[in-house]
C-alpha cells in the first residue's frame, strides 16, 4: 500500500475543514469516543447536525475563534491507500503555514465556493501550488447545494480556473463539483448531480498516480551521519548514512562526493541486517565506498554521470516567513539537506503580487512576501533546480539571532 500526502487550500469560509471532516466521517475514520466528544461540543450547524469542521481545529484558540491557525495533520486509510492530510489555514497571514503543508504534499485540493467562483485567494493558493511544484491539483467546487447543483455554474468556474491554470502552468488539474456539508461527491457519488460523470473525490484520491520525482535518474544521497563503530572487530567499518532523496543507487555505481568532487564506487548498501543490490528514492540506507575519502555530514553523494550544480551565488525564489522583514545587511544561515552554512541575500530582483500574479519591484521583503532573489553562500551548495528536483532544490533560511526558520527557498540556478 502507498501513501498519498495532500494539502487542502481555500479561503476562510470555503468549507475546508468541513471537507476534511466529511472525508474522515464518511470513511469511518472517526472513532466512537471522538464522535461522542463532537456531539458534546457546543458548535452545531444551523440544522442541528454536527459541525464536522471542529474535528480539525485542535487548539483552544482555534476552537474559540472558529478558525484554523496552524497546520493540522490528519490520517485515514481505505483499502486502497493511506492518506496524510495537511490541513492548512486559509488566512492570508498564515501563507507560511500553507507553504509548510504544501512542501510535503504530492497533491493539492483547491476549494472554490460555487457561489463566488475564482477569487483572489484562489489565485494565491494556486500560485503557491505552482511555486512549490505540486504535481497534482484537484479543484473542488464546493457548496454546489447552494447553487441548486447547477451544471452551468460548475462549467463556468471550470472555464475560469482553466485560464488561471494555463497562466501558472499547472499540470494535471481535475475538477469535481461537491458539497462537503451534504456529502455530495466527497466519498459517495452524488444523486443531485447526475450530470457529473467523473469520480468522487475519494475515488480520485485513491486512484490518482503518485508521481515519483521527474529526475529519478539523478541519484542523490545527502550524508547525515558517518557510522564508525571503531570497535576491534569493526575497526575499519565506515558507512555513510542518509536518505536517498532522488533516483537510485546500485552496488558498483560510480559516485562523486560534493562539494569536494572526489569519486569512488559503491561496494555495499545496507540497513541493519539487510543488504540491497539497489536502493531507491525515499529509502534510508548506509552506503560503503571502495576508497577511504574524506566525507562528513553535509556532503552529498551523487551519481557521477549526472551531477548537480555546485555554486555559491544562486538565484532562487524566496518565501519570507518571519514578522521581522528581510535584512540584506544581515548574515543568515541556510540549511540545504544536511548542510548548514552562512549566507546573505545579495539582491532582491522582484516580488510577486500573488493576487494578480504580476512582478513588482520593491526592495522590502516582509512576512508572507514571495519573490526572486540572489543569495550568496559562505560554502558552495550542490543543488538541482527546484522545478526539476524538489528534494535537492529546497532550502530554508534561519535567523541566527532567534534561531527561527524565516524563509523557504526554491533554488533555481547558479548565477554566472
Amino acid at each position, binding site marked *: *500500500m*502507498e*501513501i498519498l500526502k495532500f494539502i487542502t487550500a481555500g479561503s476562510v469560509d470555503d468549507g475546508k475543514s468541513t471537507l476534511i471532516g466529511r472525508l474522515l466521517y464518511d470513511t469511518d475514520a472517526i*472513532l*466512537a*469516543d*471522538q464522535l461522542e*466528544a463532537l456531539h458534546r461540543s457546543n458548535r452545531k450547524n444551523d440544522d442541528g447536525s454536527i459541525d464536522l469542521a471542529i474535528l*480539525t*481545529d*485542535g*487548539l*483552544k484558540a482555534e*476552537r474559540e475563534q472558529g478558525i484554523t*491557525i*496552524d*497546520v*493540522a*495533520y*490528519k*490520517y485515514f486509510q481505505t483499502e486502497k491507500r*493511506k492518506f*496524510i492530510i495537511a490541513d492548512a489555514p486559509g488566512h492570508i497571514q498564515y501563507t507560511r503555514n500553507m*507553504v*509548510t503543508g504544501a*512542501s*510535503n504534499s504530492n497533491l493539492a485540493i483547491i476549494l472554490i465556493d460555487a457561489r463566488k467562483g475564482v477569487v483572489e485567494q484562489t489565485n494565491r493558493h494556486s500560485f503557491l501550488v505552482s511555486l512549490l511544484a505540486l504535481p497534482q491539483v484537484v479543484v473542488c467546487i464546493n457548496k454546489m447545494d447552494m447553487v441548486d447543483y447547477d451544471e452551468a455554474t460548475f462549467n463556468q468556474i471550470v472555464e475560469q480556473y482553466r485560464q488561471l491554470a494555463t497562466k501558472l502552468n499547472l499540470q494535471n488539474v481535475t475538477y469535481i463539483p461537491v458539497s462537503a456539508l451534504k456529502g455530495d461527491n466527497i466519498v459517495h457519488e452524488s444523486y443531485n448531480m447526475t450530470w457529473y460523470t467523473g469520480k468522487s473525490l475519494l475515488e480520485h484520491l485513491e486512484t490518482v498516480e503518485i508521481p515519483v520525482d521527474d529526475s*529519478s535518474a539523478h541519484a542523490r544521497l545527502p550524508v*547525515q*551521519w558517518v*557510522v*564508525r*563503530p571503531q*570497535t576491534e572487530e569493526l575497526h575499519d*567499518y565506515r558507512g555513510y*548514512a542518509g*536518505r536517498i*532523496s532522488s533516483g*537510485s543507487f546500485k552496488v558498483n555505481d560510480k559516485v562523486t562526493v560534493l562539494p569536494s568532487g572526489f569519486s569512488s564506487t559503491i561496494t555495499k548498501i545496507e*540497513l*541493519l541486517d539487510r543488504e540491497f543490490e539497489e536502493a*531507491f*528514492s*525515499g*529509502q*534510508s540506507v548506509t552506503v560503503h565506498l571502495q576508497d577511504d575519502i574524506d566525507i562528513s555530514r553535509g556532503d552529498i553523494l551523487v551519481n557521477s554521470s549526472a551531477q548537480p550544480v555546485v555554486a555559491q551565488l544562486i538565484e532562487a525564489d524566496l518565501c519570507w*516567513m518571519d514578522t521581522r522583514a528581510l535584512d540584506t545587511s544581515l548574515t543568515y*544561515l541556510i*540549511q*540545504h539537506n*544536511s548542510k548548514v552554512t552562512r549566507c546573505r541575500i545579495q539582491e532582491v530582483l522582484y516580488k510577486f503580487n500573488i493576487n494578480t500574479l504580476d512582478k513588482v519591484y520593491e526592495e522590502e521583503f516582509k512576512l508572507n512576501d514571495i519573490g526572486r532573489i540572489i543569495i550568496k553562500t559562505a560554502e558552495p551548495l550542490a543543488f538541482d533546480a527546484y522545478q526539476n528536483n524538489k528534494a535537492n532544490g*529546497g*532550502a*530554508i533560511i*534561519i535567523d*541566527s539571532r532567534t*534561531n*527561527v*526558520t524565516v524563509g*523557504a527557498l526554491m533554488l533555481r540556478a547558479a548565477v554566472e
Partner: protein
Amino acid sequence: MSKHHLDYLDELEAEAIHILREVAGQFEKPALLFSGGKDSITLVRLAEKAFRPGKFPFPLVHIDTGHNFPETIQYRDEMIARLGEKLIVGHVQDSINQGKVVEQKGKNASRNALQTVTLLDTIAQHQFDACIGGARRDEEKARAKERIFSVRDEFGQWDPKRQRPELWNIYNGKIHKGENVRVFPISNWTELDVWNYIRRENIALPSIYFAHERECITRNGQLMAAAEFLNMDEEDVITRRNVRFRTVGDMTCTAAVESEAYLIDDIINEISASKISERGARMDDKVSEAAMEERKKGGYF
C-alpha cells in the same frame, strides 16, 4: 526511468530513520525518552536501524513514576542488557522526596502529572538539548498540530503559536542554551501502523500488551489493574478479568480493555475493529477538551 514506490511501512520507517539521524547530526546531547510502551520500543528498533553497527549517539531516559507495571520494568532492563546501551532513570519519588512535587490525594490520585517535573529536572541535570519521543499526531488533536522538531523553552513549555515552519524534509534544530527540542520521528504513524510494524519486524513487547488474566477494579467506568498505589477502599471490588492494555503508562492512569487477543495478529484485528481511540482509555485526557494541550504547554511530553 525507474518508477519505484515504497510500501507505506518502508516509507514511514525511512522517514523516522532520517529524523533520528538528523538528531544525531544536529544536537550535542540528545536523549531518547523511553517509557516501555510500544511506541518507544518502536523508536528503539528504528535507532538500531539508523546507527548500527555503531552505538546509539544518545542514552535512553526513563521517567519512573514508581507506579509502573512490573512487567514494563522487567522488559526495560532485559532490553537494555541486550542492546548494550546506556539507560538513565529519573525517579518521581526523588522529586517527591526533594519537596519539588506533592503527591496527589484522594481516590483518583495519580503521579502522571508529577512526572513532568521529574522529566524537566532530568533534562536540566544532564543538559539534554533534544529529547526523542514516540508521540504520534493521530493520538490527540493537540498533537496533530505538533511539528516533528518541536522547540521547548527553558521552562519546558510548548507554544503552539510560535512553532517554526517545517519545510520538506529539512529540520531546523537550532536552539538557545537552556531550550530543548522534542523530536517525534513517528509523528506520521497511526496506532495501526505501529502494530503492523511491530509484527513485520517481529519486535518483542512487554507481556501486558497481550491478553492475560488479572485482578481488576472498575473506576469511573474504566477497568483498572488492582495495585496498592491505587488508593483502593472497601467500595472497590476486585474481580479477575481477561484483559490487555492498549497503552502503557502509569498503573494509576492506564485502563485495561477486556480482550482475548493473545497474539499480535489478534491485537491487529481487535484494533482494526475497535471504535474507541487509543487515548479513550487514558483518564488523564478526559479532564477537559484541552487537557493534552494544557499539559504540553506545561512541559508534558
